[in-house]
């Protein structure tokens, strides 16, 4: 069966989702074994949103992430080795073990950083978009945040500024229905976040994360708008997380929500689509090769992270400032 998309793109989206899931299995295993100093926030169930949206970016575009940053980082091109090492607090981590899972960052991959403060990435994304606008280099910044961030004042401030300054930024709200244990219905009367686009006179688009190709198409449209100088776009991606707020979250989510999350698994659905329709001649062997490559990559990352050293004592006072740390840290 034909598809408007190339085989590379179709398999690329599959690979992106599978790599995230395989990586997160390792992260969960590391946490279980006591190898991660802190909890890990997994995005299992949300891979369609992550892979589809990040897949719509060019290599030189930028993104800001949230506390649930593993998928965004991996999809954008941060190396699995450096990400897993960071989750373990190792010196070889993407932040030298000084940021951890809520602060994954990698300028070489265009990753402006995860963020431990809900909503804080929105104004940072605007700043990145302002840089692109002034430099006229065509870069777009993709800004991920959850439904929880949309009731924060900075959501309003940021969308308003981006609108009035016509900034090339795509706001992507991953609406998974919960802020930790708080259901969205308890904290807002607007069932659809995308409705808020209207109040900023910007384009709003809506999509479900269980179909990665829909996400890809929708975010591609948003990115094209932003890149063409037609200003910011708000995309709401309805999504369902399978693992709770963090791995091992004892939160009591409704059985109906968990059933939906399982039923809407984007990887399972995309696998069925690819195998039943065989777009561009894709078959089981192609998918097996993707899975095998992802497993090999994550096994390698595991070995690397495990064998890596912890930061030495000099790491404590380095990088507080660009230079002269001894003096400024002492006094």
């Amino acid at each position, binding site marked *: 069966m034909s598809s408007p998309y190339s085989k590379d793109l179709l398999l690329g989206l599959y690979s992106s989702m599978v790599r995230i899931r395989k990586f997160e299995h390792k992260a969960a295993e590391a946490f279980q074994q006591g190898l991660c100093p802190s909890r890990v926030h997994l995005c299992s169930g949300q891979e369609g949103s992550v892979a589809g949206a990040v897949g719509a970016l060019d290599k030189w575009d930028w993104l800001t992430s949230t506390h649930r940053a593993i998928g965004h980082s991996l999809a954008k091109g941060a190396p699995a080795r450096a990400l897993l090492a960071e989750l373990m607090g190792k010196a070889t981590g993407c*932040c030298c073990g000084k940021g951890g899972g809520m*602060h994954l960052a990698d300028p070489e991959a265009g990753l402006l950083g995860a963020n431990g403060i809900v909503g804080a990435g929105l104004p940072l994304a605007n*700043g990145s978009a302002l840089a692109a606008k002034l430099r006229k280099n065509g870069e777009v910044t993709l800004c991920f945040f959850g439904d929880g961030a949309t009731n924060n004042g900075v959501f309003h401030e*940021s969308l*308003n500024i981006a609108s009035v300054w016509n900034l090339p930024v795509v706001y992507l709200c991953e609406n998974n229905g919960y802020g930790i244990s708080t259901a969205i219905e308890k904290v807002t009367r607007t069932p659809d976040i995308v409705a808020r686009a209207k109040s900023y006179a910007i384009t709003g688009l809506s999509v479900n994360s269980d179909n990665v190709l829909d996400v890809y198409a929708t975010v591609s449209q948003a990115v094209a708008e932003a890149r063409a100088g037609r200003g910011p776009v708000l995309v709401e991606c309805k999504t369902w997380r399978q693992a709770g707020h963090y791995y091992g979250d004892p939160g009591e989510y409704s059985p109906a929500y968990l059933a939906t999350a399982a039923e809407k698994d984007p990887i399972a659905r995309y696998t069925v689509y690819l195998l039943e329709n065989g777009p561009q001649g894709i078959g089981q062997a192609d998918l097996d090769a993707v899975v095998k490559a992802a497993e090999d990559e994550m096994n390698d990352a595991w070995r690397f992270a495990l064998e890596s050293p912890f930061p030495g004592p000099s790491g404590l006072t380095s990088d507080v*400032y660009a*230079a*002269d740390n001894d*003096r400024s840290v002492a006094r």
Partner: protein
Amino acid sequence: MNDARPASRLLTVSQAINEGLRIEMRRNPEVLLIGEDIGALGGIFGVTKGLLEEFGPERVLEPPIAEYGFTGLAVGAAMRGLRPVVELMFSDFVSVAMDPILNQAAKMRYMSGGRFSVPLVLRAPRGSGDHYAGQHSQCLEAWFTHIPGLKVVCPSTPADAKGLIQSAVRDPDPVIFLEHKLTYNREGNVPADDAPIPLGSADIKRSGRDLTIICWSRQMFFALEAAAELAAAGIEAEVLDLRSLVPLDWAAIKESVGKTRRVLIVEEAARRGGFGAELSAQVNEEFYGALAAPVKRLAGKNVVIPFSPGLEEAAIPQVKDIVEAARAACPR
């Protein structure tokens, strides 16, 4: 006809900062200004007058009244290599822009393992004396000195203000640049040329052998007036203007205190938990036993800055208080 540029001429603090910004904006096209009403109006204190005309609206940006939003935007822009200079209309408004400063700008270099820099300057008018009352008159430098990752600059004279703003704009780290509102119209000689002053270098504004008055910002002028009165009474006070609190010029403090063995710290901010308390602790830790008198602190009262002028004046140290404290520390 002599067409040589004058080596220096009289400017106000406000004009000096304007000149420093103008030089930096000419030097580097990625320096830009962000702040409420900083364009045609030139900011409510007139510091940015004429910059919109020279550099245009792409580099002199007037955002909505959204301090969190535009300060955070400046952090993001700085992470991408631009050099934004944010003006908060009053430093008190930092309460609604604190996350980008506390959790983003200050931490980004460290938490990214040195992979991101935030070359951001946040300029903010501070201090009392202009009858704006409690929400527009505070001295909050201790909020910022307490946050690792920030640099904190508090200039006093026009020459310092120009040189320090130039260095702040060139600095690779976030700099909080606190300008006292009541110094804006003070005149002083300012070098006409490029004259950056390194952050972390204190300046002896008056030498003396009997007592070191450690001060910064507007209180430096009070200290100078007090020192003149003290000289008439036979007490030679050294006025040490810190200029930047972080980085701190400990070598300068050490040298001066080693000489005078008496220390008076003068600050406008509320006394409890002020930066003066930190200085007092550091001096005591290093000089206990060598001091000829206990370290003395003069600071603002632990009150909200009142509106009524008489009360407002009583809330912060005045010249006579400095004279009195210095005399008590130097018995004759």
